[in-house]
C-alpha cells in the first residue's frame, strides 16, 4: 500500500531528530519520524557490564545490531577492514528511539561563545579547516534554554564563572558531589580553580512527570530504571506523538533521499520492518541520523543535479569528521574515594576551555563515570602487568581508590578525516556502507598533552600517591560525539548547509544533528545537538506556509 503524503519526514529519532519532529508536529505539520531501531526498555539491559552501550564486547545492546550493519574502516597504514557495530572502530551511535539520549552519561553543556568563533579567536591553524560557525552563541541561546527546560537539566545557574551568559536558571537544582567529587572540589578551590557541579540531563528532583535520580553506579551505558535520565524518548518524542501529527516508524532503514530533476527533495526510499522497500513522500526532509549516517545518506542520494550525492557538489559532505579526544590522568589514593554514589561524574572545571597561553582551544576537565569491574582491568599505569597475581592485587587494592580526571579536548578539524560511501561493501539491505578514513589533526596531540598535564596537577594536589597520564589525540575521531560532516556555513563552496541547517542549493532539505557542528566545543555535545534541533525545527515551523515548503531560496 502506498504511504500517504506528509508535510515532513525526519530521519533519525535521536537528540536532533526527536526535537525537530516535536517542533514540527506541534506547529501543525504532519510528520513521519523514521528510526532504524526500536523502543528499548530498562529490563532488557539489567546492569550488565558486558551488555552496556559503553563497553560492548558482545554487541551494542542499544543497537545497531551486528547482523545487518557494518562499515569499512581505513587504517592509518591504508589497510581496510569491515567493522561491526560493537567494534570501537565502527564509531557507533545507539540505534533506538532516543538514540544516545537513552544510555548517555547525560552531561548538559552549553558551548562557550568562543566555541562558535574558533578561527576569529585563534587564527588559522595550518592543515586544518578550523572555522567560525555562521551562528553565534547568542543566536543559539534561546534554543539552549528550550532544551534545558523541555528535556530537563539539573545544574547550578552561576556555578561556572566561565560559562556564556545565561538568561534563565536551570529548571532543577544541581546534584550534590559524591566523595570523589567533594575531594576534587576542595582541591580545585585550593588551587584557585573554579569547580562546579556538572549540569546533567537527569532529574535531581521530580520533573516533567518523572521521578528523581537515585544515583545508581551503573548509569552511563544503560537505560535508567526509574526514568530519571532525560532524553528525547521520554520528553519530546512522546509530545510529538500525542499531538496526533507525528507517526513514529521504528525498525525502518532509510536508504536514499529522493531528489527530482529540478533539484527538489520529494521523499525518502526506505526499508520497512519486514525489509520491504517503500517510499514516503513529503514536502520537506530533515536528516538527523548522526554525523556518520547523515553523511552516508546524503552521499547515497544521487540525482541529476547532485551526481555526487545531495548537497555534495563542492565535495564537503562527510569532511571534517570530529569527535572528542578524551585526555587526562589517573591517580591512586591511599584512602577509599569511591562511595557508590553514582553515576560518578559530578565535578568539573572550565578553567581550561579557552585562553590557555600558547594553546588553541582547550576543554573541560571532570571526574569520570564509575568504571565497572571488567573495564577497570584496563585502568593501569603504563607498563603494569595485565594478568597474574599483580593484576588481581591491583584490582582488589585499587578498585575504590582510583580517580580519573579527564575531559573532551576540542579537536582541530581537518579535511581528510572523513566519511565516504564504500564502492563495494553493502549492508543487509544492499545499501552502500559508510567508509571512514583519515586521522586527527596533529595539533590535537599537543592540546591533549596540555590537558593531561593539568589533570595530573590536580590529582597530585588532591594527594594521589601515584599518578599517570592517558594522553589522547591520535587516530581517527568520531565515536558517540561524532560531528562535523555537514558543516554549517555562509559560503556554499566551503560548507554543506546554511545557518538554519538547510542544505545549500535545496529549498526543502535540512540537517539537524551534530553533523552541523563547524567545531565540536570542548564539551560533550548532546545539549548543543538538542539546541540545534530547536534552532532548525523552529526555523522550519516559522516559515511553514501551509503548503509546499518554500522560503524563496534557489
Amino acid at each position, binding site marked *: 500500500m502506498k504511504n500517504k503524503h506528509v508535510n515532513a519526514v525526519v530521519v533519525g529519532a535521536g537528540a536532533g531528530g526527536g526535537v525537530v519532529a516535536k517542533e514540527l508536529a506541534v506547529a501543525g505539520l504532519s510528520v513521519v519520524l523514521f528510526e532504524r531501531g526500536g523502543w528499548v526498555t530498562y529490563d532488557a539491559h539489567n546492569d550488565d557490564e558486558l551488555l552496556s552501550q559503553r563497553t560492548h*564486547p558482545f554487541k551494542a545492546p542499544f543497537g545497531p545490531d551486528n547482523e545487518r550493519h557494518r562499515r569499512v574502516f581505513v587504517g592509518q597504514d591504508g589497510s581496510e577492514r569491515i567493522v561491526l557495530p560493537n567494534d570501537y572502530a565502527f564509531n557507533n551511535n545507539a540505534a533506538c528511539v532516543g538514540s544516545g539520549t537513552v544510555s548517555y552519561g547525560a552531561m548538559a553543556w552549553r558551548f562557550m561563545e568562543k566555541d562558535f568563533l574558533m578561527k576569529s579567536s585563534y587564527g588559522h591553524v595550518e592543515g586544518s579547516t578550523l572555522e567560525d560557525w555562521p551562528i553565534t552563541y547568542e543566536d543559539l541561546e534561546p534554543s539552549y534554554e528550550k532544551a534545558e527546560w523541555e528535556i530537563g537539566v539539573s545544574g*547550578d545557574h552561576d556555578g561556572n564563572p566561565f560559562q556564556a551568559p545565561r538568561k534563565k536558571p536551570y529548571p532543577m537544582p544541581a546534584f550534590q558531589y559524591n566523595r570523589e567529587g567533594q575531594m576534587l572540589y576542595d582541591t580545585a578551590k585550593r588551587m584557585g580553580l573554579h569547580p562546579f557541579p556538572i549540569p546533567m540531563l537527569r532529574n535531581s528532583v521530580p520533573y516533567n512527570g518523572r521521578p528523581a535520580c537515585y544515583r545508581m553506579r551503573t548509569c552511563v551505558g544503560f537505560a535508567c530504571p526509574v526514568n530519571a535520565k532525560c532524553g528525547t524518548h521520554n520528553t519530546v518524542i512522546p509530545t510529538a506523538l500525542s499531538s496526533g501529527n507525528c507517526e513514529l516508524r521504528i525498525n525502518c532503514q532509510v536508504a536514499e533521499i529522493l531528489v527530482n530533476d529540478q533539484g527538489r527533495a520529494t521523499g525518502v526510499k526506505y526499508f520497512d520492518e519486514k525489509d520491504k522497500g517503500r517510499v514516503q513522500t513529503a514536502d520537506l526532509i530533515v536528516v538527523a541520523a548522526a554525523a556518520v549516517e547523515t553523511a552516508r545518506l546524503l552521499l547515497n542520494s544521487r540525482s541529476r543535479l547532485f551526481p555526487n550525492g545531495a548537497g555534495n557538489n563542492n565535495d564537503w559532505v562527510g569532511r571534517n569528521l570530529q569527535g572528542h579526544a578524551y585526555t587526562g590522568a589517573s591517580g591512586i589514593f591511599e584512602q577509599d574515594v569511591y562511595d557508590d554514589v553514582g553515576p560518578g561524574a559530578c565535578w568539573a572545571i572550565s578553567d581550561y576551555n579557552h585562553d590557555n597561553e600558547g594553546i588553541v582551544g582547550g576543554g573541560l576537565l571532570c571526574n569520570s563515570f564509575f568504571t565497572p*569491574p*571488567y573495564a577497570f*582491568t584496563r585502568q593501569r599505569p603504563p607498563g603494569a602487568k595485565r594478568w597474574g*597475581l599483580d593484576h588481581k592485587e591491583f584490582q582488589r587494592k585499587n578498585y575504590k581508590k582510583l580517580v580519573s580526571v579527564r575531559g573532551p579536548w576540542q579537536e582541530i578539524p581537518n579535511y581528510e578525516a572523513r566519511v565516504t560511501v564504500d564502492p563495494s561493501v553493502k549492508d543487509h539491505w544492499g545499501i552502500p556502507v559508510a567508509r571512514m578514513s583519515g586521522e586527527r589533526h596533529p595539533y590535537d596531540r599537543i592540546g591533549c598533552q596540555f590537558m593531561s598535564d593539568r589533570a595530573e596537577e590536580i590529582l597530585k594536589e588532591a594527594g594521589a600517591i601515584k599518578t599517570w597520564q592517558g594522553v589522547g589525540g591520535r587516530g581517527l575521531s568520531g565515536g558517540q560525539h561524532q560531528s562535523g560532516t555537514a558543516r554549517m556555513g555562509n559560503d556554499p563552496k566551503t560548507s554543506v548547509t546554511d545557518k538554519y541547517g538547510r542544505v545549500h542549493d535545496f529549498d526543502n532539505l535540512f540537517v539537524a544533528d551534530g553533523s552541523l557542528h563547524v567545531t565540536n566545543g570542548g564539551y560533550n555535545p548532546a545539549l548543543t545537538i538538542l539546541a540545534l534541533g530547536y534552532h532548525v525545527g523552529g526555523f522550519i515551523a516559522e516559515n511553514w506556509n501551509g503548503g509546499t515548503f518554500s522560503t524563496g531560496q534557489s
Partner: protein
Amino acid sequence: MEIQRRTFIRSLCYACGAITFVPACTTRLKRWRYLIEEEADLIEAVAEQFIPSDKDPGATEACVVNFFDKQLTGYYTHHQETYREGLKSIQRSAAKAYGKSFREMTRNEQNTFLEQMEIGELPGEFWEHTDQRVFFNMMLDHTMQAFYGSPRHGGNCNYVSYKMLKIDYPHIIGQNRYGEQKSSVKPKNKVL
C-alpha cells in the same frame, strides 16, 4: 483439565525465568556445549594463571570455563575455530618445549610459557593459522569478561569478583540513597 498449549508455554517461561534469576552457576559444568573435556581443562589452567587463586578465589573457582563454553556457542560462535586451533597450538608448543602438557607444567613453567606467548616468542612452527599474541590477548580478554562480568554469562560464579572488589551483588536497584549523602562543604546554592 487439559492444559492448553499456550498455558503450558507460559508456565514453562516462568519456570525458566525463575532458574535464570538465581546465580547462573555454582560449579564447573559437567557437560559442554562446544568444548571437549581436554580443551576445558586447558582453558581453566590458562585462566587460572591469568587470575590465580590467592586469599580470594581465582578463575577456577569463578568457573570462567563455563563462560567460554557458553559464549563459544553464543556471542563468540565466530571464535570457535580460533579456539580449537589455538588450544591445540598451546598443547603442541608445551609438548615441544617442556615435554609435557600445559596442565602438567609447574606454575612457574606455565607463567614463563604465557609470558613468552604474550610477546610472541613461542616457537612459530605451531602458530601458522593464528597469531599467538592475538590468541593470547583474546583468551586474556575473555577471561577478564568471564571473571568480572555478570554471572548470567557463565563466569563469576557466586559473584566472587564482586565480593573481592567489595561491591554489592546482585546490584541493588530502587534504593533511594539521598538521605545518606554526607558532605562537609556544600557547593554553593541550589543544591539538594
